[in-house]
């Protein structure tokens, strides 16, 4: 049984809608709709491993700054974003914190840390 997936390529402003036809074991049967070969590459990668950088804020305590901005140090699977947010929402941080400090290590067992993207002072 084959199935179809549509991926919008973000490589250039064209935004080609690339149609993937896959086997029941998710093997590539056909790729169409891309106007360049980078698009095909992107579509296959995006299908098999759709990752996103999660950026968010963390509540603070004992600081005049109400929030600390954070990010995942590397992109993680996009299906984990909401769960990742729940973990971040349960976290509170206190100063002093420096940019790049690890706030939540190994988020959801991905091997990726959530790190501070700015300092936090009192």
């Amino acid at each position, binding site marked *: 049984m084959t199935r179809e997936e549509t991926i919008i390529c973000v490589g250039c402003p064209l935004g080609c809608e690339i149609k993937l036809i896959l086997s029941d074991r998710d093997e590539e049967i056909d790729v169409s709709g891309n106007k360049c070969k980078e698009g095909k590459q992107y579509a296959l990668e995006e299908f098999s491993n759709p990752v996103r950088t999660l950026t968010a*804020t963390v*509540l603070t305590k004992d600081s005049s700054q*109400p*929030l600390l901005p954070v990010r995942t140090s590397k992109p993680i699977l996009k299906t984990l974003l909401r769960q990742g*947010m*729940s973990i971040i*929402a349960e976290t509170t941080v206190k100063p002093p914190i420096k940019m790049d400090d690890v706030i939540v290590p190994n988020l959801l067992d991905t091997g990726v840390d959530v790190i501070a993207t700015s300092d936090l002072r009192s």
Partner: protein
Amino acid sequence: MSQLETEVLIIGGGVAGASIARELSKYKVDATLVEKGNDFGQGITKYSSTIMCQGANVLEFRAEYHNSRLVWAGMPLMEPLCKELNIPFKRIGSLELIKNQAGMRHPEKMMRRFSEWNDKYLPEAKPLQLIDRETLLSWEPNISKDVIGGVYDPNIAINDPVRLTIALAENAKQNGINVISETEVVGISCGTEKFKVQTNDGIVKCRFIVNAAGEYVSKIAKMVNADDFVLYPVKAYQGVLDKKLGGLINHMVLSTEHGMVTPTIHGNLFFGISPRTQRLGRIHDHSTDKKLADTALRHAQELVPDISARDIINSFVGFIVYRNFEVGWHECTVEISRWVPRFINASIGFPGICAAPAAAKEVVELLVKEGLKLEENPNFNPYRKAMPIFSELSDEEKRKLIAKDPRYGHVVCRCETVTEGEIVEAIKNGARTLDGIKFRCRPGMGRCQAGFCGPRVTKILARELGIPEEQVTKKGGRSRHLLYRSKELLEE
């Protein structure tokens, strides 16, 4: 509040109620003003187009109208009043544009009426002048070239009606009147000697009631079955244009067909539709609609062609409350109720701002007629200390002010150059909401419409009032700006 006893209760803190309160404060009277909103001048007053006029240009003005007499009596009182209260006032004059010979009829009527009224009712007013096309265009090069002449009324002036109202309320309070906001009258029962007034915050017992409730004058009168008049709310679409257009015209420019475009006291341009285009509305429905908006803009462009939709920074629908179509559009209702003793209706009609000082004096006379005893207040101070307006100070004055209070060095509203010092002062004087700050010292009235200053004004309000930021409202009640704290929605 729960229980309050007072001699005179003034219902409504618009320009009418506030003027009456201030007038009463000249005497030793136990008077209370209640306003249902959380700040003053937020009803019809807010939508006044800032003009002081004596009505010669207004179609339906008649010498026999009560309203006309109040306007004429009020005109000479306004400038000294503004000076006492430290409110800006500027006499700019108006130009009624005449497009063609047929269009001459109205201006001819205007001038005839004015000369009739001049000796009898308007002795201090300067006469109207007929201006030819050349002179008109030399005075106002940016108006429509499709004119054959105009009528110049040198008496027309502009001010800031909401600031005036707030100043009147403050001065009244300063002189001993009990001024309360966020108090809405929900029911009145009449006793033999006293009224029992039910509010959302307790009961007020009083001997006299002055019904100055603007849009709600009928509603209040109905509570005592004194509503033997009907008031018609008419939608008046108005718009504020960017300050960069401010220099386009120097006078107020009008025509009976196309309404008015005028400079405001703050340097913006303001336009409003003519009474001919106004439509009957429903009380409290201030919603705008596209058709009205498009018509209004088109009409304004007939007067000043360089106005474009891009320059509109804000627009709204105000109300003009007319007495009834048969008697006359402007007839006001300032009278002792025929049905209920010691109950005085004070709906001052249109134009209202310039009538207010005279209406206030008349209301006091009516109260005396109904039995109010007056004794002069020896401590009456007509002067209200002005809030410094940073953007209008000289360099040296700015330096001195910042040295005295560094908060005047922190500019919060970037569009209008309003400092933290002024905002804190406004809060001390009674502002408790974002709109309250807006109307007292301008943050939120500029071209970014509170985009930048909003978060900062919210912070200052929260700090000065000792409330959490999320409880700061736009205009009181349930108009909170921020509904949730970060992460609160994820807790569910």
